[in-house]
């Protein structure tokens, strides 16, 4: 998987998680809705951040499924 795809996924999911958190606290979005969306987005965010961490070592493509 190309590094910039992983970066893009990490940034988008990270921003969405922060927005959901703020929206949940401000009652813009109902807490259960924010919680369910966070459950879906948290693994995506953490896995992409994790892959970015390890990408510093291997420099370039990130080995992922189908590599």
């Amino acid at each position, binding site marked *: 998987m190309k590094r910039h795809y992983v970066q893009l996924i990490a940034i988008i999911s990270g921003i969405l998680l922060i927005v959901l958190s703020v929206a949940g606290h401000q009652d813009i979005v109902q807490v259960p809705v*924010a919680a369910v969306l*966070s459950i879906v987005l948290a693994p995506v965010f953490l*896995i992409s951040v*994790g*892959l970015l961490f*390890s990408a510093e070592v291997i420099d370039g493509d990130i080995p992922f499924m189908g590599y």
Partner: protein
Amino acid sequence: MIEYIIAAMFAGLLLHGIHRKVIARIQGRPGPPIWQEILHTLKFLGKESWIPKTASQGVYVAVVGISIAIWTAALMLLITQESLLLLFALYVLHKIVEHGIGLASGSPYAKFGAIRSVVSAASELPLLSSVALIYLITGSLMLRDIEAYQAINGPLLIVAFPAAVALYLVILSKIHYGPFSIVEAKEIVSGYWTEHFGVWRGLMNAAFGLKTFVLLYTFVVVFIGPIGLPLTLLAILILMITLSFVCAATPMLSPYDSVTVQTLTTGLIAIYIIYLGVFA
């Protein structure tokens, strides 16, 4: 929400570090610093990662995401004070992770770990009796109702002590280095997660940290009740230290002994439940 997830992960990893430290001190060793598990996780995240050729690629990666999602969902249920039944359904889903991790790998050690995970399904039996007894006493499985019950009648730890013992046993069966930790015993290297390394191992570590925090938090919420955040964290710490004492002082049981102990405990609590339901 993400702030709770990250904080709970770090707290869980810190609890793992305290667990290792307490075990080491009891065994007369200095032990690692308490933040060792956090460093461990960060170290794994920085390591070169790939997926072994002999592994089932989809499952190998998916179990990591599922593991994070399951325990994130469990944390959210606790925060929103939803049903205890849903929380325990998520706990049982964790079995899928254990099986998946082991069976996705090409390593025979990991497969042995997965098979032992099937055998150790008996660890869910005390959970069943615990939930049944809580329902029998409080008349509800909603966390907010259980908290309200405790605010009026005092902690469930006293009234439903056998249920607390059962849940304690369940948590003990999921803690590292415990008497029931047959799925990751040293004779099968690291058991079901032997072949997960690098970023996958780091994320699994983080998810398991979250799992430990959620299970201990559940115990405090269900059996001690609403006592405020600082006292809840203190109760979680004390609970973790007691678990560490048990782990340090108890040898790891063989797979069948492990199942026997868990089944016998469930049987005893079932008798107590029948007594409560019929005679009390």
